[in-house]
């Protein structure tokens, strides 16, 4: 049995965990003091040695990303923190920032020192007013205490409701004051990022993980997790379970273990399908309960670890309805720059709506898969790719359920049964 290992979440139960005093009580800002006394390259090496990988979904080694920034180039360098958490199911950075914004600021100081940047930007989504307040206040307090402003500045930038801005190059365009649309790579942000300057873009959880690594060392971090997926991470459990919430555990824990901790699927029901890392990661079923939730384990089973957003759906849920809703989301959020994504997601919605209403034919399933083939890998960014994941995986595991909509001339499920307020009869 894997034991939980709260590091990021260790002090969230202090009522004042979000204040400077609360953060300092547990050794806050000692890691940045230690890092600032180190050679920047040694900081990068330490983070490389820790094995920390990006927690925003892709899992790219954080220290290696930092190492890509050219040094001695006489250019401004930038750190940009991606706090635009919007992937359906993903809900880890938002509670982290509400409970402890200072750990992100301390991580920013360390990362800026390592990559020789004077400026960090935190790009936070705009739909979380109170989290914006907490982060803004923490930055103000850090300036007032002389923690910021001595060669490193942190600026909070607040988004305005665009999922695409979680994509790193769209985020950069948005931060420069344009419509948030992805850029063609190369050049990668490490060479030409914000204002065409060398830029590191990291997820909140990645940067927030750094202070503890500096404090406790690479070996400590390496001692947790699996062979290639080191350390602890936040798993976010939601949906048809007895207790939802955040579980910080070493990488490699399984859904079966997390469900045990959470009291299982809601009484009288059984697991039908789930996402391992948000709606852009192919669906899993009860056949994947023992899949190690690390980067390699989930990939080997045909999905992606993504943001570790474990959305649980029981047998009352219509998979066609679920997939249609996600597809409507991707269609709405497609920025419109690339034709395969813009047009493709529109057609996916049309076909899925017909299928859900029982008006389609079996040939529509082949058409859906063909459309997915023509969207996958054909655009600047991964939004369109993500849109295909729920469709292809649901047809793979639940083809019969799609057919049932056609043979019955409509959805065979009662949507009331899947709600939380249906009472015992659900």
């Amino acid at each position, binding site marked *: 049995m894997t034991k*939980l290992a*709260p590091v990021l*979440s*260790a002090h*969230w*139960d*202090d*009522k*004042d*965990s*979000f204040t400077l005093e609360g953060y300092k009580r547990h050794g806050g800002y000692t890691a940045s003091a230690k890092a600032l006394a180190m050679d920047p390259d040694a900081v990068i090496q330490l983070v490389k040695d820790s094995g920390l990988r990006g927690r925003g979904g892709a899992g790219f080694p954080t220290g290696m990303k930092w190492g890509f920034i050219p040094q001695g180039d006489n250019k*401004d360098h930038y750190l940009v923190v991606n706090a635009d*958490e*919007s992937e*359906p*199911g*993903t*809900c880890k*950075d*938002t*509670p982290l920032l509400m409970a402890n914004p200072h750990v992100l600021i301390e991580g920013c100081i360390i990362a800026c020192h390592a990559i020789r940047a004077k400026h960090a930007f935190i790009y936070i*989504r*705009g*739909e*979380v*007013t*109170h989290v*914006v*307040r907490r982060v*803004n*206040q923490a930055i*103000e307090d850090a300036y007032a205490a002389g923690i910021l402003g001595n060669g490193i500045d942190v600026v909070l*930038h607040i*988004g*305005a*409701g665009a999922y695409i801005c979680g994509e790193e190059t769209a985020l950069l365009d948005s931060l*420069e*004051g*344009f*419509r948030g649309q992805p850029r063609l790579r190369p050049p990668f942000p490490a060479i030409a990022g914000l204002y065409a300057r060398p830029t590191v873009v990291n997820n909140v959880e990645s940067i927030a993980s750094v202070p503890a690594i500096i404090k406790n060392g690479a070996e400590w971090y390496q001692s947790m997790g699996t062979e290639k997926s080191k350390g602890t991470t936040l798993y976010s459990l*939601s*949906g048809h379970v007895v207790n*939802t*919430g*955040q*579980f*910080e555990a070493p990488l490699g824990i399984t859904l079966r273990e997390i469900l045990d*901790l*959470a009291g299982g699927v809601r009484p009288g029901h059984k697991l039908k399908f789930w996402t391992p890392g948000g*709606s852009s990661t192919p669906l899993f079923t009860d056949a994947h309960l023992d899949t190690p939730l690390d980067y390699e384990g989930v990939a080997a089973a045909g999905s992606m670890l993504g943001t570790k*957003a474990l*959305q649980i759906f029981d047998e009352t849920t219509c998979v066609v309805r679920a997939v249609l*809703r*996600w597809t409507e*989301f991707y269609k709405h959020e497609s*920025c419109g720059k690339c034709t395969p994504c813009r047009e493709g997601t529109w057609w996916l919605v049309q076909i899925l709506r017909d299928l859900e209403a029982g008006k389609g034919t079996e040939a529509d399933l082949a058409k859906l898969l063909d459309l997915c083939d023509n969207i996958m890998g054909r655009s600047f960014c991964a939004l369109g790719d993500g849109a295909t994941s729920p469709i292809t995986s649901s047809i793979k595991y639940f083809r019969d359920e799609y057919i049932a909509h056609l043979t019955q001339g409509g959805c065979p499920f009662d*949507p009331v049964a899947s*709600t*939380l*307020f249906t009472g015992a009869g659900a």
Partner: protein
Amino acid sequence: MAYTDEDFQIMDSIIKRYPRPRSAIMPLLHYVQSKAGYVTNEGIEVIAKVLQLEAAEVTAVSTFYTQYKPTPVGEYHVGVCTNTLCAVMGGDAIFASLKDHLGIGNDEVTAEGKVSLEHIECNAACDYAPVVMANWEFYDNQTVESAKDLVDSMRAGNPKPPTRGPNKLVTWKEASAVLAGLNDGLAHEGVQAGEPTLLGLKLSKEGK
């Protein structure tokens, strides 16, 4: 409405946050909403002027982002998450009942201007589903009844407080100022975390 010298000073301080002025366009749009309640033509012109851009360039940015409203919203703008997980767990039922209860559709405002309604996408609180937002503050674990009570309290001029947020719900314009990056001094109010956020930590302390 006229923009005062103080408004221009605040806009100037927003621009100075960034190495390049154009980066300030998004907080300035939030600021315009804090003054007028939505993105007015006048607001577009003012931003264009202070950033030395064409109004069309500002409009192009404004129309890309759904939080910038081209028409007035209510004093309390209510968003019901109808992305898959919240929808399945009750968001669809909540949204349908609020439309019926308020007598308005998606993106519409009640006649007296108090409440507007929008179906929203995932708001990063799935462990608190079904989620309703008001002026982008969290109302967690909602039911059809609790959501109706919430909008009734808004219409009565005494809105219920958010579950994770300040002690009192601020207005749409006041929230827009916060999103422009202006500090309203309320960061210390409200809980540091709700129960689901703390579940793993609690179990860990029990030896799990």
